[in-house]
């Protein structure tokens, strides 16, 4: 008799819990639609397996929405590559479950992005990035032999993206070995190609550009460090822990040109970083 009563109470408790969750989900959904219907906001959403993935994709979509919104504003049309300053603090987000998936909805008030003073270069605040590829760490010049003969240890890109400030605190960007600007020794078409590659924000877009340049017969070969036939004769693209492109180093034994800052540098400076190599067609 007593067991039956406990069962009933448990069942009632469970039903109440489920009902509360359902009501909470419905409330969030209604709140999302209310914001979507309002003309005061720009919004984006994504439903993915993890909340972090959903947030990252929704954030990217929101940045696109803001870009389009800015482009549509005539007074700001001369500044298409701008983004609202400190978007992360200006935007807000709502999350809810959709089956086993996570739905993240991010929104920002249009009034928060209308002042020209609020704008800075996109490159200064590019938000969280997803590490998309499995990557191999860059070999030091000393490790050339090892890089050419070992199978290369593939590091899983499972770490969650970290905030920019955290990256800076944990792993400060190396400084070039010499501060003097150097002349660009590359022919014009290679300078243009390197310029295009430097515009990449992450490894996926970098690879896509390499593929395109290869299709245009400009890039001859590219790959991960463990498959590099000649470390000294290759260009090296260096990525940070968040998967963002740091710089491109030109060919060389010890001294190479850092094409981001046009100063001398070396592959040893970036030992342990993730990287891709490539060579230009002759």
């Amino acid at each position: 008799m007593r067991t039956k009563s406990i069962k009933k109470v448990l069942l009632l408790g469970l039903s109440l819990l489920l009902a509360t969750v359902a009501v909470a989900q419905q409330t969030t959904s209604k709140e999302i639609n209310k914001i979507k219907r309002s003309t005061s906001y720009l919004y984006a959403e994504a439903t993915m397996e993890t909340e972090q993935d959903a947030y990252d994709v929704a954030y990217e979509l929101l940045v696109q929405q803001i870009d389009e919104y800015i482009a549509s504003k005539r007074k700001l049309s001369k500044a298409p590559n701008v983004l609202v300053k400190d978007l992360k603090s200006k935007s807000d987000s709502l999350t809810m479950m959709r089956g086993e998936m996570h739905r993240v909805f991010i929104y920002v008030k249009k009034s928060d992005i209308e002042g020209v003073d609020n704008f800075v270069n996109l490159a200064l605040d590019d938000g969280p990035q997803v590490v998309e590829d499995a990557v191999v760490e860059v070999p030091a010049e000393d490790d050339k032999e090892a890089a050419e003969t070992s199978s290369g240890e593939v590091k899983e890109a499972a770490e969650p993206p970290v905030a920019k400030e955290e990256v800076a605190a944990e792993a400060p960007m190396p400084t070039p070995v010499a501060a003097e600007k150097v002349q660009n020794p590359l022919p014009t078409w290679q300078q243009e190609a390197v310029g295009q590659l430097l515009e990449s924000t992450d490894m996926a877009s970098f690879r896509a550009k390499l593929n395109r340049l290869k299709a245009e017969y400009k890039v001859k070969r590219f790959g991960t460090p463990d498959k590099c036939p000649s470390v000294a004769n290759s260009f090296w693209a260096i990525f940070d822990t968040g998967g963002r492109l740091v710089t491109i180093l030109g060919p060389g034994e010890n001294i190479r040109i850092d094409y981001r800052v046009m100063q001398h540098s070396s592959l040893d400076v970036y030992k342990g970083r993730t990287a891709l190599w490539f060579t230009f067609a002759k």
Partner: protein
Amino acid sequence: MKKILLAFVMVLVVGAMQAQDEVLFEFSDGIEGAVKQTMEQNTSRLLTAINRAQSTGKDINYSGIGIDDLASQSIGMMWNNVRFRVVDDDIVEHCLRIRASNGRVIGYQARNIAVVMKPIDDSYIGDLNQEICINYDPSGRISDFNITMGLQQYVRLMKEGERLNDADRRMQILHWVEQFRNAYVQKDINFMEDVFSDDALIVTGKVVKRQHTDMRPIAKVEYTTQGKQQYLNGLRRVFRNNAYINVKFDDIQIVRHGAKPNYYGVTLKQGWFTKNYSDEGIVFIVWDFTDEFSPKIMVRTWQPTVVEDDDVFTLSNFKLQ
């Protein structure tokens, strides 16, 4: 008295069930006026009809919905393989404009409509939670209906398109790639007949030897080539012999041909799943967008994933006439 009460309860239950199927769809931005209203009405009715058909186990009733035959056939083919249901009863979405290369709006699109799959039997292999996109002609009539690919890929490709100033063309390509994938899932051999150029080249790779050295395994791949009809005959057999086919496209990359701007190379990772067989490979497709309303596939290659980055087919491997 009891009968009246029972009838009343029945009416209430039926009413509640019908209300459960009801979906309200609205665009928040991107379109205004009468066309917006037409699109919203057609979408709400279609999504409600889908839910109702799923609840009752009947076919979808398209009466009162402005929808092209091709779109309803596309839904019908999907419906024969797997049933599905719209997750939300109140949907608000952006309206995306599809433009021709001259900038003219040639249609609209709604994305991110969440559906949950309700498989008919255990032959279904795939995610239960998916998203669909609906295309409209300029008058607001539903012109196409597809299950969308991953949102991450969409975001990346569109971002790249913005930088290269060909976002409109990329949206078209993505739409055709989505249709191409769905044609496998829907076993739509007519679409395949239409989309492959008559002189299309189909290349299929096969791993014939794996050599393990101290450095790394080296795979030797042999390639066979087929013409359009030879490939489609094989595909017909595959469609006939499998109750359900699920095809996934990932890691999509789009490259425009340097000298022939209407030709695009699309590289993607293809996952192929049937009840008794599955594989993963790299597919490279050359699309000819000379007729942007009816683009053709000139080349389709499949390579096992063991091939080196460097050996993956690109536009430079093919001489286009």
